[in-house]
């Protein structure tokens, strides 16, 4: 049985299970399966699943870019933590509600006379969006550090990734305590829903997709864009070649290191939005006690892209499956204890890995590449 066969079988089993539950549910609405099915297809559940999927799906998309390029980024969890914290911090420092103007009004005070350069026309950006940018930049910086360590200094990617996670896990609450005197931050508010005119009038789908949190819309846009980037652009070809056979890429004159840096930065970028979506997007504050508010979502993201076979659509589907489970569990706690639902995504990944094996990893993932080595 070859690996594509196994993968098809795994996907087939999943789809078949879903189909059985659905049909059983439709036929017997009173049964447990019925409850599952009808709850899962409610508009509210779908919206909820989408919102819960945002941090996981975005991080998974970023992570799969890095891994496709040959850099296994186990530190995604750390990127989420840092961006979740920094985005709130930046928003809080800028103050609530006001706007950051670009370009800014500049005032010089020169020997008594004051000169003001007023661009006249300013682009006003709500602070919360500047906060998002801050979170993304922080995440990308940490990802860049990870990249330098893995690419330039040839560190073991798994160990370096764990280090990134541990550093962020310490640094975010550390900084929160320095600034706020406690491991969590102040409350800064969340993004308002985006309602896209006309489209949001479409029954059901319009409500779900076009009258939603900007984070959900960003995710829904990111999935096809990421897929396109990976499969239809030159850069995507280079990323894939860099993960499969970096030498092939090097010998045609594309700088492998640069491609890998870019891919790692992309993982930082998407994780940055993901982390921000978690803090600014959902609750408007960061909480850093224990495992922080990120609480393993970075690892679930890894699970999601593995389950999704490095395909952004697959990763999104897997994220949706996991978040859908969670959305279901908060609605249907009678069916099984919370913990059963909480551990399901992790069990699913183990089972999928067993069915499909590790042969799917890009050929050169985890290995460092040095140009000129023969």
């Amino acid at each position, binding site marked *: 049985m070859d690996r594509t066969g196994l993968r098809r079988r795994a996907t087939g089993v999943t789809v078949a299970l879903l189909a059985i539950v659905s049909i059983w549910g439709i036929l017997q609405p009173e049964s447990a399966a019925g409850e599952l099915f009808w709850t899962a297809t409610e508009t509210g559940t779908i919206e909820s699943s989408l919102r819960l999927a945002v941090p996981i799906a975005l991080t998974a998309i970023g992570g799969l870019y890095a891994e496709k390029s040959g850099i296994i980024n186990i530190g995604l969890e750390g990127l989420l933590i840092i961006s979740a914290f920094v985005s709130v911090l930046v928003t809080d420092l800028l103050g609530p509600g006001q706007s950051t103007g670009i370009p800014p009004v500049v005032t010089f005070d020169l020997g008594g006379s004051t000169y003001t350069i007023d661009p006249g026309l300013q682009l006003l950006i709500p602070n919360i969006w500047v906060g998002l940018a801050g979170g993304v930049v922080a995440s990308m910086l940490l990802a860049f550090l990870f990249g330098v360590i893995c690419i330039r200094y040839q560190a073991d990617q798994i160990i370096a990734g764990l280090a990134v996670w541990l550093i962020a896990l310490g640094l975010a609450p550390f900084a929160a305590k320095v600034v706020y005197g406690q491991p969590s931050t102040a409350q800064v508010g969340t993004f308002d829903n985006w309602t896209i005119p006309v489209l949001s009038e479409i029954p059901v789908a319009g409500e779900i997709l076009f009258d939603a949190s900007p984070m959900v819309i960003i995710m829904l846009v990111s999935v096809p864009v990421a897929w396109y980037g990976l499969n239809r652009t030159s850069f995507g070809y*280079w990323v894939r070649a860099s993960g499969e056979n970096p030498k092939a890429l090097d010998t045609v004159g594309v700088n492998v290191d640069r491609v890998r840096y870019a891919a790692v930065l992309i993982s930082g970028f998407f994780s940055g939005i993901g982390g921000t979506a978690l803090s600014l997007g959902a609750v408007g504050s960061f909480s850093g006690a224990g495992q922080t508010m990120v609480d393993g979502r970075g690892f679930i993201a890894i699970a999601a892209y593995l389950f999704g076979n490095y395909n952004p659509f697959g990763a999104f589907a897997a994220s949706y499956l996991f978040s859908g489970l969670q959305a279901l569990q908060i609605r249907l706690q009678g069916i099984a204890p919370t913990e059963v639902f909480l551990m399901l995504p992790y069990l699913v990944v183990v089972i999928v890995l067993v069915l499909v094996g590790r042969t799917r990893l890009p050929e050169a993932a985890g290995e460092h590449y040095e140009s000129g080595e023969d």
Partner: protein
Amino acid sequence: MSNTAVRLAGITKRFPGVVANDQVDLTVEKGSVHALLGENGAGKTTLMNVLYGLLQPEEGDVYVDGERRDFRSPRDAIDAGIGMIHQHFMLVDPMEIWANIVLGQEPRKYFGLTVDEQQAIQEVRDLSERYGFDVDPTETVEDVSVGVQQRVEILKALYRGADVLILDEPTAVLTPQEVEDLYGVLDELTAQGKTVIFITHKLGEAMHSADDITVLRDGESIATVPADETNQDELAEMMVGREVLLEVDVPEHEPGETTLAVDDVTVTDSDDIDRVKDVSFEVRGGEVFGIAGVDGNGQSELVEAITGLESPTSGRIVIEGEDVTGHSRRQRIEDGMAYIPEDRHERGLVMDFDLVENGLLGSQHSEPYSKSGRIEWDTVRGHAEDIIETYDVRPPNADADAHSLSGGNQQKFIVGREFERDPSVVVATHPTRGVDIGSTEFIHEELLDLRQRDRAVLLISSKLDEVRQLSDRLGVMYEGELVDIVDPEETSEEEIGLLMAGERPDGIETVRKTGGKP
């Protein structure tokens, strides 16, 4: 305008502890095929990597079309019209052929945001047709044969506008027929004005295909001679630095009883494909049974089944009358089977272990090296030192890590370790691959010595001359089948070549169609 395509002047490239190229000069004429001949480690690949911008020399200059060039990266070399086809293909297996060929220079559309797949496929198709290559651009690389992959590599270089093509050991992985095809390709290329530099360590190939031959030895260029003004003996001497006896002297020896029997063995891989199909043969004590074939025709799988690394799907393996099919690899070792693996870096040695520990490899559970699970390091060390002395491993230091040894010495150490077990059956796969001529001779002698001592030797090699000369009987494998067993003395190289390519030449006397019983 000069007629020189490429000129390298005084190239010196050092690696820590090694001078890979020492003041090497090379001049290549336009439109010619130029062979770069030398032993392994002579510095051929290093020199070409310098020309291709993968390595920067400490000294010396590179001239292309009479212009001095300073290549910082392959991109510079590509821009100067140089293309390189590496020995290990630089292809991305899961990607389509067209994508591999245009990689890094993809035609784009929509403001450069998108790879123009249709245009790329068309360009590749046109290029392929122009040079008469039979390549379908939409196939995936991992699905096509090695010969096609090589043509993809050549197309890749041509797509980048290469005028000078460097081919690194291009024939190593090809069948004799594919080699002939390659020569045809080279003719076509030179006919259209391209220049070819051809790295090889095979004298015959250099003589056959090249216009000029430059011989490298120990990082120095020895001489450049036109192919039609030299002969194999002269080249061999230049390569090795002394006169070489190319013929192996095989003494007469009467084989004894059947020691190893392979009975109807089939091996199926994880993709449900039969890699070895119903193979049967016997090897007698005091006999060398050779298996020839192009790499990838089931030899590796057959060897793994015989040595216990893989279980055959069906069939039996018998050693000295005992059915060992179900025996694990460890039991196989205890059954008296020695095995020289084809890849010494992966299998034969643990590169980070010193020779003491490497000498223990395979005997770690056997007396006297291990007593009730405890390793007797004194005995083990003595054993390693014995091997080093008997088999002339240099440097003679048991504490040296395996990776600090040269390829030849690594191989001698493996041979020593395996032969010291006093095995009844020896399976030797590509025992002289990547080994210098001196060590090769030594290993050949040791194999023949085992034959004299009535051991059964199974020799698998893709070097046709090696198996032909050493074997008493020679089986040929093609696509998993043992297509024939011939008497190597009675059968010509060409005829064996045809068998290796799956064709049955007329008039070959078959020793045994099946079963291989003598």
